[in-house]
């Protein structure tokens, strides 16, 4: 019998490893375990702490490098200090390291995540996903990139050429800049400014401009519609997003990202657990900002083809695509930072490198985004707008008020922090559930009144009279 075995992963024959492969794997496993034991001994004995080679914290290495460089420039001539400041060398070098780190991280992560996303979606959609280029199709993103670079750049005849060239670049800049304040480990942050939250909100709305530029300059109705939708949606969803962050800032008392994470590490409490409504608001608004399902109306391929980047081809399209992915990862990173404890994991960050903990959280967040993309249909523009203005904004405002009260109680109540935090967790969870239900009902949502009617089954045919008869029977 002919079988489409390749369509059904269930039928995929399981491959068994031969002993020739298993033996070296076992040796490697034993060596790995031994290494872990050695590392554990090092950690327990405290011989690793704070040294530049403390692999748990790359920030230490950068710190050590900066101090070493400061030593080198300690006896620099006075005119150089007057011109460039005392620590110019360490500033420049560490900044360069950070920049190169971010660039290479984002680049590598994008290449890997294109593969991850396509494989995951393939798995969700009962197909294989890319598996031809390289082992497990790992080189597929490289092949895609090479193909995209080789392609001819098409510019529509009616397009505004300069404005058409600009957006892929402009959209890439905020895509990289948002990574700057992310704290990867206690001292490991490129730009640990004290207005980190404001910086993020400001930077993330920059891409709206580029997207609108792209839609307008393409001289295409689809692109224009997509751009208009994007602008409308981004502006609307920035408000609940900012309000959700406001609760975070209120409770932790800081706009500095590293401080927010530190607060969560100190109190052993994730803000996402403490205020689930804010987590939901932030996540949902972020999917709207990202144009991802269920809010991908800006590039809804069944309606407006590809939205604002309909006319872009080759690497220009590649840049849009990459930024979209990169922003998804960034959102996962921010959800991790603000709501899931950043690099902290209830003390476990002492044992494993914090940046790995954080990377794990990013991966989890990203997985949820891919999952949503593979599962959900799409809302309509007016439904989304209504959801933002009539639903998310009021309930997140109420949440802010509640959090403000809780914050002042937390500050003035003279008991161990665990008690108020546990109390607030319960209160906030109850509040979230109640307000979500209440506000939906307030807006007229009555699921129990409109029962889902399965089609009526009948054995007799007929026309209008039969239809009316059936209607009256119901």
């Amino acid at each position, binding site marked *: 019998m002919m079988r489409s075995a390749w369509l059904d992963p269930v039928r995929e024959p399981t491959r068994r490893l031969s002993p020739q492969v298993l033996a070296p794997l076992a040796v490697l496993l034993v060596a790995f375990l031994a290494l872990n034991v050695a590392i554990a001994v090092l950690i327990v004995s405290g011989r690793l702490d704070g040294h530049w080679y403390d692999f748990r914290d790359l920030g230490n290495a950068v710190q050590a490098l900066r101090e070493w460089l400061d030593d080198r420039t300690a006896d620099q001539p006075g005119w150089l200090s007057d011109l460039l400041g005392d620590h110019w060398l360490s500033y420049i070098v560490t900044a360069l390291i950070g920049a190169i780190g971010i660039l290479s991280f984002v680049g590598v992560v994008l290449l890997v995540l294109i593969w991850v996303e396509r494989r995951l979606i393939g798995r969700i959609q009962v197909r294989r996903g890319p598996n031809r280029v390289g082992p497990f199709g790992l080189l597929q993103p490289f092949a895609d990139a090479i193909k995209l670079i080789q392609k001819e750049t098409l510019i529509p005849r009616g397009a505004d050429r300069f404005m058409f060239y600009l957006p892929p670049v402009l959209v890439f800049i905020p895509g990289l800049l948002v990574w700057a304040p992310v704290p990867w480990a206690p001292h490991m942050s490129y730009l640990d400014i004290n207005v980190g939250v404001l910086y993020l909100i400001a930077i993330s709305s920059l891409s709206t401009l580029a997207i609108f530029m792209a839609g307008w300059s393409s001289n295409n109705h689809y692109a224009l519609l997509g751009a208009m939708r994007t602008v409308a949606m981004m502006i609307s969803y920035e408000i609940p997003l900012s309000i959700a962050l406001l609760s975070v800032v209120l409770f932790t008392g800081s706009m500095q990202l590293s401080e927010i994470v530190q607060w969560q590490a100190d109190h052993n409490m994730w803000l996402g657990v403490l205020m689930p409504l804010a987590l939901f608001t932030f996540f949902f608004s972020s999917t709207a900002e990202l144009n991802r399902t269920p809010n991908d109306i800006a590039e809804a391929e069944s309606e407006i083809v590809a939205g604002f980047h309909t006319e872009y081809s080759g690497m220009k399209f590649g840049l849009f695509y990459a930024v979209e992915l990169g922003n998804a990862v960034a959102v996962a990173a921010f959800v991790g930072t603000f709501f899931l404890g950043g690099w902290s994991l209830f003390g476990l960050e002492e044992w494993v490198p914090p940046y790995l903990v954080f990377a794990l959280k990013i991966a989890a967040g990203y997985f949820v985004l891919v999952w949503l993309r593979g599962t959900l249909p799409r809302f309509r523009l007016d439904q989304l707008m209504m959801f933002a203005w009539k639903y998310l904004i009021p309930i997140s405002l109420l949440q802010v008020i509640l959090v403000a009260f809780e914050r002042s109680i937390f500050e003035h109540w003279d008991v161990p922090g665990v008690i108020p935090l546990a109390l607030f967790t319960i209160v906030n969870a109850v509040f979230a559930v109640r307000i979500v239900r209440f506000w939906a009902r307030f807006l007229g949502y009555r699921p129990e009144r409109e029962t889902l009617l399965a089609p009526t089954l009948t054995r007799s*045919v*007929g*026309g*209008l*009279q*039969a239809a009316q008869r059936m209607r009256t029977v119901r």
Partner: protein
Amino acid sequence: MAGRLRRSLPQAVVAETDEWVEVAPDAIVDVVRWLHDDPDLDAAQLSNLCATDRYDHFEVVYHLQSLDQNHQIVVKARVGEHERASLPSVYPVYKGALLQEREVYDLMGVRFEGHPDLRRMFLWEGYPGFPLRKDFLQITGHHPGLPHFPFEEAGRQER
């Protein structure tokens, strides 16, 4: 059925068999409306509308059906001249005639007077001739017509 139709609308019925009724082309809307409104015949749906080229005339065939009574009524109308073939549109009675009449006009060249949107459908405005007519293309030994497909010659010259 034909007898009742003859009683209600005299002059309408031209010919009849067991299977179909041929009616006068001018009376087609009246006949169809009568069939549609009559509670016993109850031709609620226009199931199919097409035309046949009988060389000297067109035969426009209406397959009407009653869903409640579960029967089918075939009404035919004869359209005379090839050059000025036209027939009243049944769109006022059946909205489903919208696309079917356009299709017949496009491929057979029967104009339907009173159709709200009578344009070519599959072919473009200005296409020479109506392809489903028997005299559209000449088939050697069968019937006369155009010696070759329209635009065939022009296409060759462009290349």
